[in-house]
């Protein structure tokens, strides 16, 4: 008998996960809006506009991290170009925001300021329809999706793997960055898009809009997590992981890795695009530096900090790193790179499976302590091993078990 889809969607996450999500949703959709809109500033529980936008921004980063984890953690494809998809989504929505400025720009013209300044008399063709929210939303998903699909199609078809794939994604985003820096490209050059005024006519700086964007970001994150969780627990997810571990073997049992990778890759890019679209109105600017190679590497770093291949880890990693950055650039403006740098080193040395790995280890240890004889310890270790967190296994053996699942870069290195 086939289990109904909704039930399977529900089963894809453990109960604890659903409870955590529900709490998160309650806080994001009710707690924060109330605390921001209804409580007076003097109230100790008031959530400041600053905090709302900061958290909103971080939520968008978390979505990107989840998208990255889907493609890296579960499909073993390390993208060093995800910043591009994020930025494309941002630019697609930014075009709409620019059009919404209307005649309120510096030049009081119908065209965005930077075009007036370039002596352009009309919108270039690729701006057509950008004043429609629907079209903008379509582009937000379609543009990164299309770029990813075309790029992925050629790359996966040529069987580009591992570090070779990583490097060309980096080249792609780098090239796009240089292209967008040019004024002639028609996206405002280095200054990018800023000074947004409204969405659908509503003031973008109003508390209501701020909270709405925040809540939407939270919704997107929840949707991504549920979707991601479903994907990785489905047979599709198992095939993907199998491709990651032994691609040629997968082919010999009849799956075509090209289609699997391409699907996940394109989906991941689209999620990034959505995140970018929500990010731009919340931070108020999009410029080509979002496409810089270092930005994309950082996305990978978030995921690694949290724990690759766990989804939750990606969320935690993005949250921890970005919060740390936001906090320490304020409190330790001249020394925060030390703090962050050491954080990364300590995580790698002492938390080999990221923050999530630590949590699992602690849980395994607690379970072991609860039953206080040797065989119980054995059971716990075993369950840890079975649970996919072989933290208890001696290092050399863990390496052996991992050898085929090495990251793409390792494969490149050992190839």
């Amino acid at each position, binding site marked *: 008998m086939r289990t109904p889809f909704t039930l399977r969607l529900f089963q894809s996450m453990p109960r604890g996960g659903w409870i955590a999500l529900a709490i998160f949703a309650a806080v994001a959709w009710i707690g924060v809006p109330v605390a921001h809109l209804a409580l007076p500033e003097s109230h100790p529980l008031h959530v400041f506009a600053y905090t709302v936008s900061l958290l909103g921004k971080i939520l968008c980063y978390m979505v990107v991290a989840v998208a990255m984890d889907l493609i890296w953690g579960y499909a073993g494809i390390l993208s060093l170009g995800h910043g591009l998809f994020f930025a494309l989504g941002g630019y697609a929505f930014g075009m709409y925001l620019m059009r919404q400025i209307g005649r309120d720009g510096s030049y009081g013209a119908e065209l965005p300021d930077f075009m007036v300044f370039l002596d352009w008399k009309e919108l270039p063709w690729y701006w057509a329809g950008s004043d429609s929210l629907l079209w903008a939303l379509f582009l937000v998903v379609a543009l990164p999706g299309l770029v990813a699909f075309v790029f992925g199609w*050629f790359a996966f078809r040529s069987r580009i793997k591992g570090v070779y794939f990583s490097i060309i994604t980096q080249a792609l985003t780098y090239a796009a960055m240089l292209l967008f820096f040019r004024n002639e490209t028609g996206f405002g050059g280095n200054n990018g898009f800023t000074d947004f005024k409204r969405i659908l006519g509503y003031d973008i700086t109003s508390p209501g809009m701020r909270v709405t964007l925040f809540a939407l970001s939270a919704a997107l994150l929840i949707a991504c997590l549920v979707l991601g969780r479903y994907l990785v627990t489905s047979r599709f997810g198992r095939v993907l992981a199998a491709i990651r571990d032994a691609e040629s073997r997968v082919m010999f049992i009849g799956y075509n890795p090209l289609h699997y990778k391409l699907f996940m890759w394109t989906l991941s890019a689209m999620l990034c695009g959505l995140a970018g679209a929500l990010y731009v109105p919340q931070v108020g600017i999009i410029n080509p530096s979002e496409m810089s190679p270092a930005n994309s590497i950082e996305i990978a770093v978030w995921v690694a900090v949290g724990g690759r291949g766990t989804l939750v880890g990606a969320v935690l990693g993005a949250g921890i790193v970005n919060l740390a950055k936001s906090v320490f650039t304020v409190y330790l403006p001249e020394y925060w790179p030390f703090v962050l*740098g050491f954080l990364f080193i300590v995580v790698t040395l002492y938390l080999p499976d990221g923050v999530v790995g630590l949590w699992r280890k602690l849980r395994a240890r607690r379970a072991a302590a609860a039953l206080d004889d040797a065989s119980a310890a054995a059971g716990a270790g075993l369950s840890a091993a079975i649970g996919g967190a072989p933290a208890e296994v001696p290092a050399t053996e863990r390496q052996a078990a991992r050898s085929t699942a090495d990251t793409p870069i390792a494969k490149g290195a050992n190839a």
Partner: protein
Amino acid sequence: MLCVLMALAALPARAALDPALVQGLGGDFNARVAAIDALGVAGGDEAAALLDALEGGRLGTVDGRLVVIAPDGLRDATSGEALAADAGAATRITVNNRLRRAIGTARAALALSSAQPAQRLAAADTLRENASPALLPVLARALAAEQDDAVRAVLRYATAKLELASPDPALRLKAAQALGGSSDAAVKNLLAALLEKRGDGAAATWVEADAEVRAAAAASMRAIDRRIGLAQTAGTLFSGLSLGSILLLAALGLAITYGVMGVINMAHGELLMVGAYATFLVQGAFRSHLPEYLDLYVLAAIPAAFLAAALVGIAMERLVLRHLYGRPLESLLATWGLSLVLIQAARVLFGPQNLELANPSWMSGGVELAGGVVLPYNRIVILGFAAFVLVLIWLMMQKTRLGMFVRAVTQNRPMAGCVGVPTARVDTLAFAIGSGVAGLGGLALSQIANVGPAMGTGYIVDAFMVVVLGGVGQLAGAVWAALGLGIVAKFLEGWAGAVVAKILVLVFIIAFIQKRPQGIFALKGRFADS
């Protein structure tokens, strides 16, 4: 004015300087230029001394009177008598480019009578570029007296350039023919001007009336064009190779730490930085302790840069990376952290600004090919240095046991231990060597580009591209990739500009990997794809 100058030129070379003429130096801008020109034509030691004083900022005016500002007080510029007023009373005459150029030409005119052929040659070269018609007699005199063939040749060009404007068609013809041996674009323009027409339609007349001169000019132009074209192609090729050698030096260390050892070393750029900073410190030490040998600081920096980076590498390896072998993912994260730390450490210790590193004199300037194409010495030296480092690494990896051990350890660490290789020691040593080579890269880069805390971030992307494009673990691949990218980039840049060229190079890399998904030197064989 021209006549005045002509008249002046006829004066005997050693005549005392006309005070009126000299006072012009204290006058308005045009008067100064005129005075300098005149000094050049007049010649003599006094004129030279005055020019020196002017260029050195030691000439000033006190109440309109021209004075030389000496450490011990003021002296009148013409009479040399000491003045009572103290040095602060004088208004210094500022020298700007325009004056400096005039001074240069005047100096060259003076130097034509130098006893040293080398000085005369340099002077003739300057005049060839800048001589004004006023100097034609000086040139003619010098040419008549000149014995040295090389100097004569240059002088003849210089004269010919001026003679193109001569009223005598025969002289013009000779000049036009003589200039065919030049490879100077400016000369070409002079000739081209002769072939233009003045006026409109039927009424138009040739600038150069004489058909024979025109034909000679056209022939000479073609000859110059050919020479310039050749030199420019050679120049572009050289710039490509040079860029390639720089990419290679930036990438070689990584070719070991990443390519061979498999550590995704995001702190590679910072190892380059360590090498460059070590070079800076060596330069500083030479400046303060061995100023007379300052030119050799770069050589002394070779071991210093290597060791400094190697030590940092050893520390990195011992403290962090050693726990991460076989976990390349984690090495990405940890080295990213290390890179943040190293950059900020440099900022805190040395400040955020760029550091000044001077090319030693033997690395300054360049050899000039035809047509103004210059191959700078620093780039030539770096090209050679890249080859040197490359050979060193190649010998190390291919010809020593250590190289074999390193390769074996990365391919199968546990098994390498089981045949008796002390894997930990080999790792440290190999990482130290890779880091040291990165330090050498930093040394080389310091001679071309800026040295600052974040300098490494500019190279890390390129370095990874080179190593990967070549085929990971393939030293030869890295060489081809670096040189190939350099040359492609330079030819594209000449054609499309730097920005578009850079974009095209990246697109080229993407397309190239489609054709060769494992880099230029793909590993073939059954183990490669499993």
